[in-house]
């Protein structure tokens, strides 16, 4: 390879791994570039030695004392208040979107099933087992169906984002605001399903949803318009996490679970649930 320029050598430490490897192999054989890199490193190392005063172990407490009187009171949130929007009307519209209503309906069904299971758990040992098993099946099936659909929507959004690209080489920004808005919605749903999965003891499903949530947050917090380089970085980050593959695998598993759970729903005491199988 040609000698790397100064910019390449300066970016060497934090640069992308592929480029780093190429430079490393060149520098290993090139005395001139090795000397140049050593000079850059010497300056960076010297700067790293520049001390920062120790603010003291009680520094955090002192900061708090200074700012506490300046913090406005924050009224406790009520159930009708929204976590992140001051626009109540817009908030209601958002919460009444069909998809979100579906998510809430799924969770509500799970809660009702749990209630029924508990309500009828007293009379006899046999009916207790029967009704609880039924309620458990219903809960699981509802969760499986709702999450399956949610994963399908997430997968579609991620695929579209993965395929996004500038229309031509001169385009400076790519509009991903649609994907971003969808990611914002999906984050809310995802959180609901993750918490429900956790409550149901389905830690494996909750784990995958947790990973998905991180990716969705990444997209939801990106600007609506990104440069091709930013888009490329985002696509690489998503690919590196392998989330699309995991979502597909879990989606298939859920379909399987749905199929096996369906006939059993009307039967009683037939199995102990299939949690943590993913």
């Amino acid at each position, binding site marked *: 390879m040609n000698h790397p320029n100064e910019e390449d050598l300066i970016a060497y430490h934090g640069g992308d791994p592929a480029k780093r490897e190429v430079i490393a192999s060149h520098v290993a054989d090139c005395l001139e570039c090795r000397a140049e890199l050593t000079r850059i490193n010497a300056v960076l190392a010297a700067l790293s030695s520049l001390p920062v005063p120790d603010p003291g172990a009680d520094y955090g407490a002192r*900061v708090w004392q200074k700012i506490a009187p300046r913090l406005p009171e924050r*009224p406790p949130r009520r159930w009708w208040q929204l976590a992140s929007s001051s626009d109540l009307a817009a908030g209601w519209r958002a919460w009444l979107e069909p998809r979100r209503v579906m998510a809430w309906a799924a969770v509500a069904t799970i809660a009702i099933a749990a209630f029924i299971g508990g309500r009828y758990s007293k009379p006899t040992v046999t009916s207790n087992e029967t009704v609880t098993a039924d309620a458990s099946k219903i809960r699981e099936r509802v969760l499986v169906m709702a999450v399956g659909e949610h994963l399908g929507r997430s997968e579609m959004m991620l695929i579209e984002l993965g395929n996004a690209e500038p229309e031509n080489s001169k385009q400076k920004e790519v509009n991903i605001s649609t994907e971003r808005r969808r990611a914002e919605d999906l984050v809310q749903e995802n959180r609901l399903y993750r918490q429900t999965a956790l409550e149901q003891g389905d830690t494996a499903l909750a784990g995958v949803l947790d990973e998905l949530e991180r990716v969705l947050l990444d997209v939801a917090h990106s600007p609506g318009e990104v440069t091709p380089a930013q888009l490329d970085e985002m696509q690489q980050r998503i690919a590196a996490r392998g989330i699309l593959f995991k979502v597909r695998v879990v989606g298939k598993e859920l379909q399987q679970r749905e199929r096996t759970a369906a006939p059993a729903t009307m039967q009683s005491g037939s199995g102990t649930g299939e949690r943590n199988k993913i």
Partner: protein
Amino acid sequence: MEATGDSDAIAVERTLAGDRDAFRVLVERHSPNVFRLAYRMTGNQYDAEEVVQEAFLRAYQKLSQFAARANFGTWVYRIAANYAIDRMRQRKSEDANREPAPRANDDGIEVDAMSFVPDSAPNPERLAQSEQLAEHMRRALRQLTPAERTAFVMRHWGGSGIEEIAEALKSSSSAAKNTIFRSVQKLRRALEPFVEPRGQARSVGTES
């Protein structure tokens, strides 16, 4: 790290629910880290402390926007970096209007009174040399523009990613990369005459 993140998330939720004392946990936990960033960016303790306080005040005010974010530490770090840039720009323009005579020691080297830190080096000559080098470094850092200094500090001391830096600078990723390059290039030009590479050219991958 995961446990800290979870506990941060709980503190954020409680703060949003009206429990103001929950925010204290976040302030006490993250202040030292934010101070280190702020000091390196502003170069003096007075401004650094102001940046820290302002960063947490802004974080409190914007906390509802944070609700879904993953890492409170990273978030408040970025708020501090944003404010520090404004603070440095303001300082530069104040200094330009005032045209101050830099405080100088007997050797004519500018002295930052707030940045003396005890040095344990036993040899007085070495002590003087290292103090001189430190002064050269502080001066070189002061020569950077606020954006360059922010980019350098976040990258080389904070370990921040390009996107995070771009967000703090309100620029594109490629502009942020360019700013990092320019900052290191300027520091090289200013400091290479005073910094001696240790030994001969070393093999790659052994640097810290």
